[in-house]
């Protein structure tokens, strides 16, 4: 998975909330996470599936439950991808500024 896909997975606002709650809890089931965010357990599970696909979280089975944790090295990569995307926009805005001010 490339950086663009990684950041798109993490940059969705609802998913970011789920990720943030998971960071705070350390390890959690979708049911426990759903108490921390204003989503249904089903919606939380869908977000987790996307994060799992992106490799940002890992899951393990514990009896009848599935528990999720954050994978710090992948989260770090996602944060870096976000910063790179933000830096690209900063550079583009500077270019727009130069062009618009020259035309004035």
């Amino acid at each position: 998975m490339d950086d663009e896909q990684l950041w798109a997975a993490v940059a969705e606002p609802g998913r970011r909330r789920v990720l943030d709650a998971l960071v705070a809890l350390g390890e959690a089931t979708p049911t426990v996470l759903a108490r921390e965010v204003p989503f249904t357990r089903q919606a939380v599970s869908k977000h987790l599936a996307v994060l799992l696909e992106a490799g940002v979280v890992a899951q393990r089975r514990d009896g009848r439950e599935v528990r999720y944790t954050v994978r710090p090295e992948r989260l770090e990569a996602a944060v870096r991808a976000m910063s790179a995307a933000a830096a690209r926009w900063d550079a583009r805005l500077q270019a727009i500024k130069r062009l618009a001010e020259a035309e004035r």
Partner: protein
Amino acid sequence: MPAPIETSVHIDAPVEVVWRTVSEPDQVVRWFADEIDLRATPGYEGSMTFHPDAGGTVLVPITVETVEPPRRFTYRWGHPAGTAADPGNSTLVEFTLTPEDGGTRLRVVETGHDDLGWPRDQQDAYVDDHNDGWTTHLGRLEQLLARRSADATR
């Protein structure tokens, strides 16, 4: 609205000039893509073409959503070629132009995929209500990562 990527710049030019720089194809090629197929018309499906230094050609589909000259211009991009852009397969880029000190404040926000397909305004309301900003989240995540690596080396 706090968002995953949100940045802005003050430009010493009127909003009408900035609007043209942001939305007119012959201007957009000067700061963004190497080639562009774009029309500032809601629903217009075009593309941006990049020629990376590493070689090759990257074509990115773009679908215009909102055109409110000279204040607001939004489009989706990154959806697979040949498919319609929707909140589940593309990211949303929003430009907002506001008069400021005789010039313009140009703000850009880019938001990631929403695989749940919520209505956009519902999402925005949710984010407004509950979000203290991606910067704060980033800060917390970075602190966590620093703590974890400190623990690991202990």
